[in-house]
């Protein structure tokens, strides 16, 4: 194992490279790539790697990039690509196609605000746009986690009980371009962690069609199957956590990472790097004698509802921080989890960092000052961060 000083973009590409090489005795690796700020460095780095039995194709659009991955995955190769914001929007149709065809493609997303008006900074609105269509979604808070999760995503997505695409998200610039020390395992370890890619319906000797026309009852049935498979992910993820720890000597964070939450009265719930900031604020408030804890939702799809509901039980108040807004409604995370709290718990939505602002401890302190006296939840509130 070595320690590299690399950005999260490079970490994602490095993880994909190790995973790609791990399939050299299988049907190899293929990636279709297209650049967009802030994920460009990921595909650039990938293009420079030497991968035995691997090909990285630079194509003319994100839509085509995912098309390449679909073709490769359908043939049994391990597949990966990366994009952001409007690139993901352009890729969207094929993301849904990959999910509908139950292909275990891993997609690294450097979260960036959708535009126009143009904005290059971090916002979760792009990945959340595709939350409903059958892709697993992870949101990471630091470089090591991003690296580990990309590796893990191949294992999870390709598990025969899962068999669907997985999206691993990192905030643009905050993570994608930030360089920190990252532990990088040996190829031999990755070879042990990732079995060869094997897709039950992969194209081979017997010609058949993937993604054919179907009638309503078939669609309903297939969605039911897909939904059930998704619901089984948390259990399988726990198995992978154990396997990961055995092979690499570290443990990946849980699907919902709790910090000083057991005896907390107030919980801060968030996704991504705001979760790391929340933990610093928790320490601040704890030092003042206030019982504050935090939950960082790392696995967003499938939503670990039961886990979150358990944590909400008995809590007085919950601040849900969304680095996104569902226009005309409010924060997406808030919308999904507010119903998991009991009647006595005040669940208040704070949307912060929309469009990529730097969310600092002071912002969270303000939120908690606002939340503390509340007897009932108010309308979703937006906080300005520069």
């Amino acid at each position, binding site marked *: 194992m070595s320690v590299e*000083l690399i*950005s999260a973009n490079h970490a994602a590409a490095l993880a994909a490279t190790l995973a790609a090489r791990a399939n050299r005795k299988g049907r190899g690796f293929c990636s279709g790539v297209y650049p967009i700020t*802030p994920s460009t460095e990921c595909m650039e780095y990938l293009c420079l790697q030497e991968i035995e039995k691997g090909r990285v194709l630079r194509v003319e659009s994100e839509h085509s990039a995912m098309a390449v991955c679909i073709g490769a995955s359908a043939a049994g190769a391990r597949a990966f690509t990366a994009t952001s914001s409007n690139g993901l929007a352009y890729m969207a149709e094929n993301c849904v196609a990959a999910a509908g065809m139950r292909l275990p493609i891993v997609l690294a997303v450097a979260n960036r605000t959708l535009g126009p008006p143009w904005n*290059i*900074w971090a916002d979760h609105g792009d990945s959340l746009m595709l939350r409903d269509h059958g892709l697993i979604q992870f949101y990471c*808070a*630091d470089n*090591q*986690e991003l690296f580990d999760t990309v590796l893990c995503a191949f294992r999870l997505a390709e598990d025969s009980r899962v068999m669907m695409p997985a999206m691993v998200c990192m905030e643009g*610039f*905050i*993570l994608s*371009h*930030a*360089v*920190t*020390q990252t532990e990088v395992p040996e190829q031999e370890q990755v070879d042990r962690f990732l079995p060869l890619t094997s897709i039950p319906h992969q194209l081979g000797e017997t010609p058949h069609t993937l993604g054919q026309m179907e009638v309503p009852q078939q669609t309903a049935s297939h969605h039911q199957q897909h939904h059930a498979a998704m619901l089984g992910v948390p259990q399988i993820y726990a198995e992978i956590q154990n396997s990961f720890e055995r092979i690499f000597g*570290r*443990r990946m*964070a*849980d699907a919902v*990472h709790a*910090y*000083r939450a057991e005896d907390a009265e107030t919980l801060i719930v968030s996704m991504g*790097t705001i979760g*790391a*900031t929340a*933990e*610093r604020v928790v*320490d601040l408030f704890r030092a003042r004698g206030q019982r504050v804890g935090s939950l960082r939702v790392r696995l967003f799809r499938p939503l670990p509802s039961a886990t979150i509901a358990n944590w909400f039980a008995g809590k007085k108040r919950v601040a849900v921080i969304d680095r996104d807004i569902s226009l005309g409604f409010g924060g997406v995370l808030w919308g999904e989890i507010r119903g998991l709290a009991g009647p006595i718990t005040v669940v208040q939505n704070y949307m912060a960092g929309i469009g990529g602002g*730097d*969310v*600092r*401890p*002071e*912002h969270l302190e*303000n939120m908690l000052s606002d939340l503390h006296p509340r007897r009932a939840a108010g309308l979703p509130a*937006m*906080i*300005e961060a*520069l």
Partner: protein
Amino acid sequence: MERQSHAEASAQAPIIALPAGLTLPLDVRVHGRGGQGGVTCAKLIAALYMQMGLHVQTFGDYGSERSGAPVQAYTRVDRIPIANRNKVYRPDHLIVLDEGLLGTQTLGGAAPGALLLLNSSASLHRYDGQYADYQFAVIDATAIARELGIGSSSVVIINTTMLGAYARLLGAPLSVLEGCYASLGLGGDLPAAQQAYQRVQMRARTVSHPAVPAPAAAAASPPVAPISAHNADIPASLKTGSWSNQAPLYQEVAAPCNLACPAGNDVVGFIQALKNDGAEAAAAILQRTQALPSVCGRVCPAPCMRACNRDAFDGAVNIRSLERWISDCSAVQLTQRQAAARRRFAIAGGGPAGLSAAYQLALRGHEVKIFEAGPALGGVLRNGIPAFRLPQDALQRDLDRILALGVEAQCDCRLYKDDLARLQQTYDALIVCVGFGPAFGLAAEGAALEGVEQGLAFLDRAKRGRVTLAGHVAVVGGGNTAIDCARTALRCGAASVKLVYRRGHEEMPAIREEIEAAELEGVRLVLHRQPLAFTGDGTVSAMLLAEVETGPPDASGRRSPLVTQRTSRIACDKVLLALGQSKAMDLLPDTWRMRGARAWQGNRPLPVWFAGDCASGEGTVAHAIGNGGRAAAAALAHLAQAPDEAERETPDPVAPAQIRFSHFEMAPPHRDRQIPPSARRHSFDEFNLGLAGPDEAGRCFSCGRCTHCDTCLIYCPEGVIYRSGDGYRIDTDYCKGCGMCVAECPRSAIQMHAKTRQEVSACL
């Protein structure tokens, strides 16, 4: 990573000798300019601390930067993994890569006693009294890096040098620096870092004056506020113009047509005026320099058209015919100006040179008298150029305009030596424009036979009245006079006309269009032939020709003709000789000598100038007009004892490659309407009817002269070009010097200039 709390994190491996006084966690902020390597500088700092076994995090503050824009990058250092993902608002260490960036924004939020390392060529003492609150250090990283060749000569990369200075300030041993560079594969840059390590000058923090509050702490991080309404754009606070090292300047460049015109006409000027304001406005410009527009618009060889940049695109602009259009369709009469001191000028010779000199002098308010040997003014215009090329009324229009300025003319007045001497005495100045001397004859057997005539004499006769010819005519020569003779001979009734010339088609000095017209009318060119003798019984009936080969080039570069022994004979009833004219001038007083374009008596220059063919021998009307005008200017300057304005350097004109052809649609030139050759063969009416309209003016590129097409304004990516008065203004506060305006200007009317050292920011 999973842990109960950060404070209970598992201890790191023992750290290798941390520098004393280093307090953790540590926030570092780097300020540089885009392209300078500021982000990498922050990463190098991270690598240095990583070498010491510490946890690091580094990232740039990304936005819409470009080369030269202020850029920030951050590095955090701690014993435990770093969870803080915010930007650095309260730096413990400040690295400033460009002195020009120092300001409240750069220093904002710095902790008291923060370290400030500055890249500057100044010594530490230059900052005495400044930055007292900081541990202040200075290193000329640019000089070190430039000397060691890191980066390019225009963009020196200083980050690997700065790190050396920084390591020294930390108190880190050189071995740590060396280990860091080895691990990054930057061994080649180590000498620069080592030099900076040795040479950095530092100064401890001095006691801060309580009276001066640190402005930094107050502006630490942005305030936490509710959503503010943004209905207007955030006003720009950075003057991006300060980053550029070059700036555009609207500057007129000489057009090739203007430079090529022997008369010094503002061709671009009159064509653009015709296009925008009509014939009258164009005439006002044209007539400043052009005494004879109706003439030149018909018979000028048009060197402007040969020089025209449009020729490299889809065909030269038909400038000659535009000049004709202007003079035919306008009735502008310039009036005499008031002269400060009215002088009296005598002009010998009423041909184009003399007329032009008279015109320029009369325009400026002086008294002018022309002495013309012939019965009327015009010279070669009257008796040399055929009416079908230059109709009488066109010539008369130009003459009337000149006379209307008050020019006196005395015709039928041949001058001799005594006359010239007398004129020089009685007038303030004399300009001699008597044209060519006698025509060259042919020393060949039979040249004295009846029917062998000088071409000029023939043309004069034909212009005075009806001349009838019969039979076969042979013209000897290849210039305009020869062509005129040939075409006139046809119209006078010749059964056939052959033109004999000793060189080839390409070498014929006549105007191309005239040669073309002659051939269309039926003139047969007999090339590479030279007459040896004429035969006939009293009257010429045949001509003996020798074949001529082209030999090696002579001193002038022209290939000299070699007469061979191969002969042939052509029948001819009339021979016209057009072999050129000598410059002999026998009317100069004996004590006068012509030196350059001036008469000298002994070693004293006289107030006597020569102009036109008698001086330069160029043989075209346009040269004569230009020459006459320049002689007038020289005479005026001499009398006023002022420098001659006409003596100016010849600038470089706009070249075809400097015109943006892509901005123009292809459109072939408008052609002159001409009477069909069959119809005009027997008529002395003007065969060329000129253009149908002035639309050809729209094809002029206006090389080097702004036409306010707004292309620069439209293409400027910053939107900093504005219309101003009758030109443009560039907001230099925000012009980044990208040069897009210059690259897109269709006509090269705007140039980029390097800024001076004072104007360029210090980082380059």
